[in-house]
């Protein structure tokens, strides 16, 4: 037994040395980036005025706290993203089930939707919904934004969900059917809980895309985070500071979503993905 310790010990020493080298590389790279950035801005003669940024986030005049334009924009972005995410999931699930249905009409409908949405640019879709559909349906710019984003992301979510559903072993369907469960019950109780658990990581990726894509709604006069940024920059010329700040806010949002999904994944870890076939 004691003979096994030296090689193990050596391996752990090697591992910590490798970790040290990794840290070294990371800080070297980070330092180099900062140095290049300062060099670049120095060369431009850019006058950094970070002290002017906080008041665009919030003001505390007379002890009263008030949200600045950037936080107001953030709120709009969050509202649009949250609503669109919900609609995306509903739309995506519907389209996925339609594509897998026995009905020719449902399959054709889903197929048409997916091809149409995935082969045209999102910006054009947003314009189309805002300028063509919204006057017909008499809906606001905000609703148009949510509709366009949901339609777009829903098509991708549908394909992710479909992949998850077809990845579930046929035996699960057969077991459910042999118990007399209807197709609806089989999806709800047997197939979807397993399928969604499997595709949670790519689904989260789609959610993150949605948050980022929501910046495009600034083109239809919605004062989201990006639009507020454009407005402030055009008034103050604080281009570097504002866009850095806005990028950081988006980063916090997407990290937040990733984190939430990872926590959800951990909670759903009651069974391993590999055991999902029911074969010992």
């Amino acid at each position: 037994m004691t003979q096994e310790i030296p090689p193990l010990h050596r391996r752990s020493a090697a591992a910590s040395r490798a970790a040290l080298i990794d840290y070294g590389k990371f800080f070297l790279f980070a330092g180099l980036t900062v140095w290049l950035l300062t060099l670049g801005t120095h060369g431009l003669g850019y006058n950094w005025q970070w002290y002017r940024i906080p008041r665009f986030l919030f003001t505390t005049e007379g002890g009263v706290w008030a949200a600045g334009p950037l936080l107001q924009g953030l709120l709009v972005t969050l509202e649009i993203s949250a609503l669109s995410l919900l609609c995306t999931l509903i739309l995506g699930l519907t389209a996925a089930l339609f594509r897998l249905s026995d009905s020719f009409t449902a399959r054709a409908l889903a197929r048409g939707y997916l091809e149409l949405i995935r082969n045209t640019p999102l910006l054009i879709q947003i314009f189309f919904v805002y300028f063509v559909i919204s006057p017909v349906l008499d809906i606001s710019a905000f609703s148009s934004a949510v509709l366009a984003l949901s339609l777009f992301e829903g098509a991708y979510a549908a394909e992710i969900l479909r992949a998850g559903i077809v990845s579930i072993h046929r035996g699960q369907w057969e077991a459910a059917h042999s118990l007399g469960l209807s197709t609806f019950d089989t999806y709800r109780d047997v197939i979807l809980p397993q399928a969604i658990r499997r595709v949670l990581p790519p689904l989260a990726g789609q959610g993150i895309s949605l948050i980022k894509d929501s910046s495009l709604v600034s083109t239809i006069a919605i004062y989201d985070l990006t639009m507020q940024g454009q407005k402030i920059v055009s008034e103050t010329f604080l281009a570097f500071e504002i866009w850095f700040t806005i990028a950081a806010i988006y980063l916090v949002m997407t990290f937040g979503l990733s984190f939430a999904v990872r926590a959800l994944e951990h909670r759903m870890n009651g069974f391993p993905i590999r055991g999902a076939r029911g074969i010992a």
Partner: protein
Amino acid sequence: MSTNDVIIEAMEITKAFPGGVVALDRFSLAIRRGEVVVIIGPSGSGKTTFLRCLNGLEEIDSGSIMINGIPLDHHRKNRLLIRQEVGMVFQSFNLFPHMTVRENINLAQIRVRKKSRADAAEATMNLLVKVGITEKADRYPHELSGGQQQRVAIARALAMNPKVMLFDEATSALDPEMIGEVLEVMRSLAAEGMTMVVVTHEMGFAREAGDRIVFMENGRIVEVGETERFFANPSEERTRAFLGQIL
């Protein structure tokens, strides 16, 4: 036996798979209530396909199947009705991996039989006692041995109070030392008078629990007989050759 006692009647059923393999070729078999029929035969003889046709997992090309007086046809309602009366145990268990043992057994009672949670829970506990795994009620399938998983699968099928149980090579995926515990449960079911159609390679079980043995090859019946007569004195040359190989 009067015809009233027939619970499963398969008439001239034919099933071919894409690619031209004929799994069942004008296959007819009538099974009486309370009978244990064991189907044996070489692999690819259509045994499993026959079982899967009996609860509509495979659609037959021609012929007719009647179970407990309900025709298994294109009507979705009839299909669901038959599936509620016919339990099936698979070679690969097919337990629902995201549900505990208890939830696996509760599901169909609540969703299909519309039982209250309390009623389902009580029936589930009784079934777990019956198959001998009460201590694993709150475990997930992957935490159980193969034999335990298969016993849970049997309990899950029994939870629907089926009139017929189909066993599709229920012990073939098990380690040798776990086969006994599953056969034990199947034997006690047979002793209780459950109508069973069993596809198996376990000749010991066939001899002991089977009322009738069906020997199949190429989608057709080669020989059917009462268990004792079948093993002691098979009438077909092909049956003798097959039994000679496996016994």
